[in-house]
């Protein structure tokens, strides 16, 4: 940290919050709120005389409130830069500090928050994690029993720079505890609170046990666990060492802690699973390894930065395996626990990776992005045709990449921000936007080729690039058998699955159509799937009203890992077709055709579509004649 502060090209802004992020990769405009410290950074030399004279004491957050601090304070002794801060909520305005500071005149009570705007090329988010408050778990008595502490409190109590100078004492009587219990998974792996694993508690629980045991071999330590997770290099060996040192491991999740009112000793009730027997053991002190949870302001930060969140609330990476340090927004990267709980080695690795990713941007003249971006045909936008831009595209875009400056000016795509999901393209009621490499015309040509021959036997499956396409792929590589009548169509996101494509498929006489994409939480385009899903629901209801046979239009969310599901869904759709009388099916197709045609009336006007139709007609007849002529 000190090194970072010394490096001339690193500017450390402490006590500063990000208020607003605008712009795009390489060209962000970031508004920062530099909060008032009431101490002038360029004058304070960190001597601490102000804190010495300050008469006010409040709990010290850094010491987990186990020690006091003054109203004039630094968060911790190693703070970088070492600039004091006056806590106005606690200050009684005696001005003793001003006196103590003397000729330096570093204290300025009139200072106010300052908003500054900076040009930023790339952003690395490293906001870390927060801690689950175990006092909501009544059964463990935290905050009711003085000697039940959290792991963070333990970190301070056995730290030589902590409030007790590393002398582990228990809160009730300040005696050194001899019998300690550590309880893992407090609020983690618990559907009532946080279903996920917090990743590092098993290891720090072992670490603390080993540290305490090395300092004082007399202490008796038991770690209660459901599973011990030691998945990294050297971790299992460390676990072994803990066992060699005589630390006890009891498999069994305690159901309750009770306290002796007089001695404040604690009794941990659990089943010892290996014995199959309920045990009640007495301890002097119990440490709860509380779950790692997202920061309380994580939702707010995610909307400021316009990055998505995974189901647990952590920031969502672009790709879990291949791009774990990238956010879905170009130029914004993640480092450390903000993206999901991880220990220091993994946080550092991710941080270094994010830094090198960011430096690629800072050192490039030009920045290449995926070519599949959206483009507006200004002459088709309702701003031009009717003098009023409807703004539907801007609302659909998960990245805020579409600007509508005024109703008369056609929508504008900020190419650098566009990720190519195609939501705007499919949503635009005027067909005024197209997506390069996934134009309506291109998709149409593919569809027509796929449905050229005996369309009523075919199942046209729209798959999104990231999930259901992968699922289909996996079904293939895993040799899950599924119907040979499936014809797959890839688009980038379910958001691109235009209603026109579906109508066209039925107009061409398709037997069935599958509308598939990622599960909502897996969407690669933040909210693309939601847009696709809403549209799919609308279509489903409409087809119901048209009395289309149930199952001929199917909507399924299939992840890249669900090859079995892909195969099952396709087979089920095949069964629907098999169970239909062929003539009945043909009659239904014919019955619905006029309706589809009506809905597609404007479709041929889309640039390229009629050409594509003419071209594919030739293609289709070529395919059909070739088929009929024996080779």
């Amino acid at each position, binding site marked *: 940290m000190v090194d970072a502060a010394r490096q001339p090209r690193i500017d450390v802004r402490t006590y500063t919050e990000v208020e607003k992020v605008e712009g795009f990769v390489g060209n962000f405009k970031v508004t920062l709120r530099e909060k008032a410290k009431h101490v002038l950074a360029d004058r304070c030399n960190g001597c601490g005389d102000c804190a010495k004279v300050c008469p006010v004491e409040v709990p010290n957050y850094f010491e987990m409130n186990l020690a006091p601090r003054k109203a004039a304070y630094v968060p911790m002794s190693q703070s970088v830069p070492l600039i004091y801060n006056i806590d106005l909520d606690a200050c009684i305005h005696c001005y003793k500090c001003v006196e103590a500071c003397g000729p330096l005149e570093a204290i300025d009570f009139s200072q106010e928050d300052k908003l500054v705007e900076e040009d930023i090329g790339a952003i690395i988010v490293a906001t870390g994690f927060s801690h689950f408050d175990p006092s909501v778990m009544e*059964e463990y008595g935290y905050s009711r029993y003085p000697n039940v502490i959290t792991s963070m409190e333990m970190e301070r109590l056995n730290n030589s720079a902590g409030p007790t100078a590393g002398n582990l004492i228990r809160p009730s009587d300040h005696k050194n505890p001899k019998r300690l219990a550590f309880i893992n*998974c407090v609020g983690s*792996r*618990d*559907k*009532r609170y946080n279903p996920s694993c917090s990743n590092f508690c098993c290891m720090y629980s072992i670490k603390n046990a080993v540290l305490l045991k090395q300092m004082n071999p007399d202490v008796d330590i038991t770690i209660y666990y*459901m599973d011990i997770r030691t998945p990294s290099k050297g971790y299992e060996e460390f676990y072994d060492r803990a066992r060699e040192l005589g630390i006890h491991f009891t*498999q*069994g*999740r*305690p*159901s*309750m802690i009770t306290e002796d009112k007089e001695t404040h000793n604690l009794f941990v*009730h*659990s*089943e*010892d*699973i290996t014995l*199959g*027997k*309920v*045990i009640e053991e007495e301890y002097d002190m119990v440490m709860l390894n509380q779950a790692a949870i997202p920061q309380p302001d994580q939702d707010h930060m995610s909307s400021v930065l316009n990055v998505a969140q995974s189901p647990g609330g952590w920031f969502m990476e672009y790709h879990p395996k291949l791009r774990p340090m990238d956010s879905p927004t170009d130029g914004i990267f993640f480092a450390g626990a903000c993206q999901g709980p991880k220990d220091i080695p993994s946080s550092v690795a991710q941080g270094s990776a994010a830094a090198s990713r960011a430096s690629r941007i800072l050192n490039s003249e030009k920045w290449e992005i995926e070519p599949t971006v959206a483009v507006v045909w200004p002459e088709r936008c309702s701003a031009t045709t009717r003098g009023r831009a409807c703004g539907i595209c801007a609302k659909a875009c998960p990245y805020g990449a579409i600007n509508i400056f005024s109703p008369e000016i056609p929508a504008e795509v900020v190419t650098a921000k566009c990720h190519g999901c195609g939501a705007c393209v499919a949503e635009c009621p005027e067909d005024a936007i197209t997506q390069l490499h996934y134009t309506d015309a291109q998709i149409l040509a593919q569809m027509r080729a796929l449905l050229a021959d005996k369309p009523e036997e075919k199942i046209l499956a729209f798959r999104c690039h990231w999930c259901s396409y992968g699922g289909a792929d996996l079904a293939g590589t895993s040799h899950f058998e599924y119907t040979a009548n499936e014809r797959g169509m890839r688009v980038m996101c379910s958001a691109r699955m235009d209603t026109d494509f579906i109508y066209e498929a039925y107009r061409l006489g398709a037997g069935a159509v599958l509308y598939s994409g990622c599960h909502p939480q897996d969407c690669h385009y933040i909210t693309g799937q939601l847009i696709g899903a809403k549209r799919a629901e609308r279509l489903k209801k409409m087809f119901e009203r048209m009395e289309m046979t149930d199952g001929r239009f199917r909507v399924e969310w299939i992840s890249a890992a669900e090859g079995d599901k892909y195969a099952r869904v396709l087979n089920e759709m095949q069964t629907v077709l098999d169970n239909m009388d062929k003539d009945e099916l043909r009659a239904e197709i014919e019955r619905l055709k006029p309706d589809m045609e009506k809905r597609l009336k404007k479709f041929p006007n889309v640039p390229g579509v009629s050409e594509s139709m003419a071209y594919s007609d030739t293609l289709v007849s070529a395919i059909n004649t070739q088929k009929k002529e024996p080779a």
Partner: protein
Amino acid sequence: MSHSGSSQSFADEVKAIPGGEFVELCFSCGTCVSKCMIQQKLEPEYNPRRLLRMVIMDMKEDAFDSPTTWLCSACDLCYPACPQQIHISGVITAVKEIAVEQGGKTTLKTAAVDQQTCVSCGLCAEACPYEAISLVQTKVPYRGLVQVAQVDPGKCMACGLCSAVCRSTSIGVPDDYTDKALMENLWDWLQPEGVTF
């Protein structure tokens, strides 16, 4: 134990009964066991975690023989404590249902009715937390066809609530905590001088 893929496994049977759906989520963490008072106060072999395990591992016979199947009173102390939010007593009840269907019998001494004195007032049926009592037309010696209380041993948990409300002392759990035992215990202690029996 069998892992035959085709036929319906024991877990499938249990999952098909409402309450048994989530049995396979069990971590085997033991929270339920240490919440439960039965192992600690009554039956050392009692263990809900193991019963869930038996269901998952297709150990039907062992499950039917386990006291857990028969002694769970559905007090649901464990339910709010389970980190997987499994309704454990729901699973156990499902196992019991299957066991009863396939001829299993409870190991509990369930309540019995004295058909000679029962007046069919129905107070016991109202008091029973398990809805194990119904009033049924029965042929009773000397009394003929009359309506008397009848206990379903598949449901009765031997709590004795019925005997506390019965005004004609016609129903109760035969062995444990009988009125007689209670009163003698009291008398033993109080025993006003000079009076013995």
